[in-house]
């Protein structure tokens, strides 16, 4: 064993790039809520892009390292300490056996990523180590980490850079809320035009009934022109679904593969990481854009990430 969880934090799970390719069996993708920060963490420690990391939520863990390794923490800004010494975010550092990493106060954002050289070693399920909590798949026994959990980690790859190495944060973290760019969804034409106006001009707030599967929002209700029944269709992270109550749900990483509520809009891929850094109580303003702008934004983001 290489690490031991002393305190698990609010919700800490093993996440890799996600379980792709099995949605037609009802198997959700899961994976990181903020994919950009997750990728940066792996990059910092010399891992391949889809190595397993720990996703930390709102209150961070305390972890004992029983093996020398290199680690980095990215994403939400936390006060971090190793053996009571302050350390920086977004920085690859050596840590020696017997050391303790503690997450302290959180300043901005909701989720952080802890990567270690060689990744976290839990069994792969259907090709992925991502944890999907509601179907108990993947990660460590399909569940969030608890006190005294032990996980083995991989070995340090050839890593020639002088440490510590710091990189700029993967995204600009939201403070209190965020604008999210959206494209019209497949059922947007079934909604009243005043609903589309409300969605694009009013603030919505993330309620406490929110988790990795999706954020239930409060705000102006959205209404169909006429009541309709929808046969289930494929859904994904970023879809904004509207159940009968009229109050929208923004689907996130652990969302179900299919759903039967109308889909009014989709958050663009380039803004999903930002959505992943929001928490209950945060506000959202949806800004409509077209597909071309969405793809340009994604392309620009990729180029910036690689620099």
């Amino acid at each position, binding site marked *: 064993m290489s690490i031991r969880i002393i305190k698990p934090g609010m919700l800490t799970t093993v996440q890799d790039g996600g379980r792709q390719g099995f*949605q*037609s069996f009802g198997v959700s993708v899961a994976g990181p809520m903020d994919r950009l920060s997750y990728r940066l963490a792996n990059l910092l420690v010399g891992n391949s892009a889809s190595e397993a990391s720990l996703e930390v939520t709102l209150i961070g863990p305390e972890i004992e390292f029983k093996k020398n390794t290199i680690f980095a923490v990215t994403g939400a800004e936390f006060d971090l300490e190793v053996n009571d010494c302050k350390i920086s975010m977004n920085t690859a550092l050596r840590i020696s056996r017997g050391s303790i990493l503690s997450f302290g106060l959180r300043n901005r954002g909701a989720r952080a990523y802890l990567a270690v050289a060689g990744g976290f070693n839990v069994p792969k399920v*259907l090709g992925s180590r991502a944890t999907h909590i509601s179907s108990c*798949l993947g990660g460590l026994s399909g569940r969030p980490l608890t006190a005294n959990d032990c996980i083995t980690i991989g070995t340090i790859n050839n890593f020639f850079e002088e440490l510590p190495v710091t990189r700029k944060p993967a995204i600009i973290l939201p403070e209190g809320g965020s604008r999210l760019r959206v494209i019209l969804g497949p059922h947007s034409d079934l909604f009243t035009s005043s609903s589309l106006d409300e969605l694009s001009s009013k603030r919505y707030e993330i309620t406490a009934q929110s988790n990795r599967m999706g954020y239930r929002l409060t705000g102006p209700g959205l209404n169909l022109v006429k009541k309709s029944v929808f046969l289930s269709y494929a859904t994904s992270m*970023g879809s904004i679904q509207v159940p009968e109550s009229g109050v929208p749900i923004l689907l996130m990483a652990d969302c179900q593969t299919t759903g039967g509520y109308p889909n009014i809009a989709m958050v*663009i891929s380039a803004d999903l990481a930002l959505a992943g850094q929001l928490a209950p109580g945060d506000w959202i303003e949806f800004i409509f854009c077209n597909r071309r702008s969405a793809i340009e934004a994604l392309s620009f983001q990729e180029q910036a990430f690689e620099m």
Partner: protein
Amino acid sequence: MLFLFEQEELNVVSFYNVRPVGDSSLVVEFESRLDSEINERVIAVAEAIRCLDLDSICDVVPTFYSVTIYFNPLRMDVEQLASAVKHLVDELPASLKREGRTIRIPVVYGGEYGPDLKEICKFGDCTIEEAIKLHTEKNYRVYMLGFIPGFPYLGRVNSRIAMPRKSIPRLKVQAGSVGIAGLQTGIYPLEVPGGWQIIGRTPVKLFDIQSEEPTLFKSGDTVVFESISKRDFLRLNGLEP
């Protein structure tokens, strides 16, 4: 982007349309209804797209009457993909007859295993025996899998017992529970919250990550339910199907 095509070779006219959804998916949609021929076409399209084995495609998800293709828009232009997909759909043979599997599912109905069976009887104004007969006498098609790993959407249920789902879902539905929601019937592979009307339970395992094929069912399979005694259910429980 809207393509409407009539396939003249068929006696049945198959309209379909191909359109982007969001910035990283493309959807092929046939007529929006519960129809086994449309569903057969959907399954064939999904299979043909998977066989293209394109790196830029992340997943292909068939549902009742549509196929959603998730792809990386930085590696594949959506117009190009739509064009390739349209070509595939057009090239499908007029008649799609596949070797389907029939899977028999033993179910212990009612009592502690089917807490909503009495409600179904009230709904359909029938006895328990009649309700069980109505559920078991039909062959059901697996239209799609979704919601949770291995959950099959089966249709069509006899309208007499086609009770809508509960207005307040249960916090916990036991794994193996057989339920009805309107014209659909299904089986819960895992214990989860759920709103379907629960009429019985099966000892059969629907989802097994250790197995080569993780789900028991595939779209296009036929399912037949068989009523078994509580004694047989307890005996079968935990054994391989």
